[in-house]
């Protein structure tokens, strides 16, 4: 069972002291920091983030109860809200004095619901009457109002990745108004209405922040609405409705995630997957909005995998309490179903140590392999995950090693999916190269180099991790091995990817090992194994076991048209001196060939007439080139001239024609 937990908690959680009468705990979604404020800050504020860089400890004066506390991006400025009307600021810029200032909200009678940092020095106040966008000027100890907008606000939600604030407006609270912020500018995005299952009468706030989450999935901003079952419709189960908010244009209701149950839920977004935790069953399910369900209507999704609990976590005992012999304490997770934090799982832990923990949730890919039987769907799923490479390669290896009964059609599907992603990357790379080569003047926007994600599984990956060892398996039939290799080559060809030589070599090795020369011959005949010099040389080396390889090799060298020297060498090595000469003459390269090489070869045949012919040919060539039939010293043909005179006599040498 344990290998079925596909969700786990990160290894190093953020540990914090539990909230108590003297200790207030705050969580900042944007920086993922937990603030433990003791006695209003007088006895210390401990800030802990996911890594040590984000952890700070300091003291501040106790000026009343802290309602909200957040660092700006990069821990530059601390904002503390103590009253409903104002926010205090303390500068944390290194090598600067800790200057302090305070800012009241502009709107009269408004009370501040909260604030969000959108930059290292830009902040948005959200009040019940609207929003106010400020720039903090730490050295002047003041704030500058950049923009404001008045609107009645029930509650708000902030997405730090996109710097978008979502405001709940109207009496029912179901009209959401998003604002986007970017370096000093604020833009109003189209508002939209969440369709409520039941419309209460009289109108009262019906949509609460507990039902809404914002997150970026696959680079797009989504508002997720947890729609509990309604008694009026015939669908008894809860579902999550996704609204996509594009930067430009209006929102779209894009996806519906079927939860198939009711109760209390919490949502996370991890690695572009929507994770839904179900309280009563203590299980979690995941959804991939890019995974199309064949048996569902468009954009209605079922969970990718059956529900499983999060992998049990044991809290290591550290510090004073640690006793070396004591095993780690298993902990029971109490997911805080009250708040949504798309990125993290905030948990209160029932443990003997009154501590709270904050974890990142992680998707463990290996268990998904066994839970998702459909290999094509599994590949679609894996290819979109961040750390997928080794898992995908292991799926391929497992699939080929007979673990599954899918056979070649499944192998083909998997290869096609891998190569589609591979192809898209190569194309992007190509476009980038072309764009950069054509200079920065052409093409307005400076292109970014395409990122090579782990999902790009190239030929060398496949060769190293899968095909090479697979082809050496003794218990697999060579027929299947060859079929798989050919299937991979077919798949690469289908998306017009140039096949690397080492794959051909693998195929040839298999065919030669099993004496399947006629098969090899046919592949070459249809140019399935593309021409290359290394391949031609490989074929030449097969000549002794399979004579036709010689012809195949020569044909290939001929087609390459850059291998004329090699052709001459091959022919000379077979003592086809005349053939070599005729060939080099036909391609027009006989002006500058080495006479010595040909004469050497002709001498070796022990055919005197052949030697005579070759000798005479070069004499004539010399005549044409230099007006003199004799060889120049640089050609090192002296011994052949001596031999020629010996055999045919001095007078047989060609005379220089005198005009």
């Amino acid at each position, binding site marked *: 069972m344990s290998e079925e937990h596909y969700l786990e908690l990160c290894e190093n959680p953020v540990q914090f002291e539990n909230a108590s009468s003297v200790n207030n705990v705050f969580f900042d979604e944007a920086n993922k920091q937990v603030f433990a404020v003791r006695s209003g800050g007088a006895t210390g504020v401990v800030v802990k983030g996911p890594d040590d860089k984000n952890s700070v400890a300091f003291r501040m004066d106790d000026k009343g109860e802290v309602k909200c506390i957040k660092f700006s991006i990069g821990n530059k400025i601390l904002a503390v809200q103590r009253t409903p009307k104002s926010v205090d600021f303390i500068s944390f810029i290194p090598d600067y004095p800790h200057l302090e200032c305070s800012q009241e909200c502009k709107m009269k009678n408004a009370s501040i619901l909260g604030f969000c940092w959108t930059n290292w020095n830009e902040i948005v106040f959200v009040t019940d009457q609207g929003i106010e966008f400020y720039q903090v000027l730490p050295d002047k100890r003041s704030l500058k109002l950049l923009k404001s907008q008045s609107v009645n606000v029930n509650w708000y939600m902030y997405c730090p990745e996109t710097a978008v604030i979502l405001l709940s407006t109207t009496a029912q609270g179901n009209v959401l108004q998003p604002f986007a912020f970017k370096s000093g500018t604020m833009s109003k995005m189209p508002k939209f209405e969440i369709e409520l299952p039941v419309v209460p009468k009289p109108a009262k706030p019906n949509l609460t922040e507990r039902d809404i989450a914002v997150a970026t999935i696959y680079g797009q901003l989504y508002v997720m609405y947890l729609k509990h079952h309604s008694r009026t419709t015939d669908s008894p189960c809860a579902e999550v409705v996704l609204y996509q908010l594009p930067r430009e244009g209006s929102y779209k209701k894009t996806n519906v995630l079927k939860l198939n149950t009711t109760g209390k839920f919490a949502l996370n977004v991890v690695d572009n997957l929507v994770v839904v935790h179900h309280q009563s069953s203590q299980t979690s399910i995941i959804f991939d909005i890019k995974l199309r369900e064949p048996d569902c209507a468009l954009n209605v999704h079922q969970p990718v995998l059956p529900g499983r609990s999060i992998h049990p976590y044991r809290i290591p005992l550290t510090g004073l309490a640690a006793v070396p012999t004591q095993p780690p304490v298993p902990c029971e997770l109490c997911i805080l179903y009250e708040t949504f934090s798309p990125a993290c799982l905030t948990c209160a832990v029932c443990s003997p140590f009154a501590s709270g923990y904050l974890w990142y949730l992680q998707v463990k890919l290996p268990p998904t392999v066994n839970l998702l039987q459909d290999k094509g769907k599994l590949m679609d799923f894996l290819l979109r995950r961040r750390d997928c490479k080794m898992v995908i390669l292991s799926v391929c290896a497992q699939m080929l090693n007979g673990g599954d009964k899918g056979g070649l059609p499944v192998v083909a599907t998997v290869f096609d999916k891998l190569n589609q992603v591979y192809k898209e990357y190569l194309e992007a790379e190509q476009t980038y190269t072309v764009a950069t080569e054509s200079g920065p003047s052409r093409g307005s926007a400076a292109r970014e180099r395409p990122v090579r994600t782990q999902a790009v599984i190239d030929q060398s990956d496949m060769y190293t991790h899968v095909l090479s060892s697979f082809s050496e398996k003794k218990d697999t039939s060579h027929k299947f091995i060859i079929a798989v290799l050919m299937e991979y080559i077919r798949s690469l060809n*289908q998306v017009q990817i140039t096949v690397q030589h080492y794959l051909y070599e693998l195929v040839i090795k298999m065919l030669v090992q099993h004496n399947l020369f006629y098969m090899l011959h046919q592949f070459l005949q249809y140019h399935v194994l593309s021409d290359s010099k290394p391949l031609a040389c490989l074929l030449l080396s097969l000549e002794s076991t399979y004579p036709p390889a010689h012809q195949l090799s020569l044909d290939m060298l001929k087609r390459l048209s850059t291998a004329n020297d090699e052709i001459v060498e091959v022919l000379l090595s077979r003592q086809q001196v005349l053939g070599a000469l005729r060939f080099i003459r036909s391609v027009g390269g006989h002006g500058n060939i080495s006479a010595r090489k040909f004469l050497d070869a002709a001498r070796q045949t022990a055919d005197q007439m052949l030697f005579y012919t070759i000798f005479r040919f070069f004499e004539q060539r010399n005549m044409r080139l230099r007006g003199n039939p004799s060889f120049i010293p640089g050609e090192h043909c002296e011994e052949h001239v001596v031999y020629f005179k010996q055999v045919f006599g001095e007078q047989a040498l060609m005379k220089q024609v005198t005009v």
Partner: protein
Amino acid sequence: MASGMQEKQYTPSLLSFFVYNPSFGSREGEEEKKILFYHPSEVEKNEKIRNVGLCEAIVQFTRTFCPTKPAKSLHTQKNRQFFFEAEDSFWIVMDTVYGAVLRECYSMYKLFNGTFGRAMEAGGVELLMQKLDKFFYRYLQTLHLQSCDLLDVFGGIAFFPLDKMTYLKIQSFVNRVEESLSLIKYTAFLYNDQLIWSGLEQDDMRILYKYLTTSLFPRHSEPELAGRDSPLRPEVAGNLLHYGRFLTGPANLKDPEAKFRFPRIFVNTEDSYEELHLIVYKAMSAAVCFMISASVELTREFCEQLDGLVGPQLTLLASDICEQYNVNRRISGPDKEPQFKFIYFNHMNLAEKSTIHMRKTASVSLTSVHPDLMKILGDINCDFARVDEDEEIIVKAMTDYWVVGKKSDQRELYVILNQKNANLIEVNEEVKRLCATQFNNIFFLD
């Protein structure tokens, strides 16, 4: 071969054909036992013995000069005899035709009956004689000696030109079928009567190809050409998903009386000696041969499974190939009348190509040139066979024709040119041009 010219007024015909083994009747008075098959059978016994004896004597006599290569043919004023030692001590003799046809007779016999030796082992001389009688009685009638020419000498295979991607798709198809129907040992794939893929070894494929293209396919082409309502058209009712059908075995799977018997063939007779069922299945212009060990009994279930699996895929593939072929043809320009009349053959892969033959089946061979010219081609081929060196022969024929034969490594090319008043140099140039356009992707010395 020059003597061939003098015979031109006679059309060649088969005088006799016999198979004998000299070791079977070595004692005086038992000569008749040597003869395993004799055509025509009505010839008087003593004459049979005389003829066999003469052959045996000639072979024996010539062996004293060259023990490894005894005489292959005997030419007399009236007829020619060709001898062929098919297997150790088994001799086949036929008059008046090329040795190649003789060898082919044996290969075809072997494809469907196995070797003489095996028949002897299984049932002695009686079984062998029965088999010979059964096979050659019909086969010799289908020989059309007058239309045999150079192509019969080569016994080549026409390969279907295809792009890499479509070829890989066919590979993939073959591999998948062989995987899911693991009974299948070998597969061969043909399109338009031209070979694309052979899982059989070359020599076996060569004779199987000959059988398919000259005997099986022509017999089955009529129903396809026939109209929709013709009674000749096979039943396709109830199965509109694909056009697949069996060319061997059951004509109609739906028929409750259907028999699931397939022709048996013998391959790899040199080593593993396999007897196989030959299933030929066709969808549109694509034909696939599936070969299954003869020790397995083929059932209705198997045939239905094969039909269900292969039919739809093959139909799709056939239309893919057709489409691709048309695309390629459009790219390479309209199908104009070939300017050159030539025959090309590669000994290495048995690939042959002819623009001289319009259509070649067992019964008719339509060539676009005069038989005399075809004879010259045969003569040049004969000359080539004598030496290993590359060479080129240019012949000026009696009419205005020039005949050029070129041999480069294992390839032979024969070109027939009809140019009035052309000289040797012009002819040579013309052939060079042909090589540059038609054979630029192979290494062909000029």
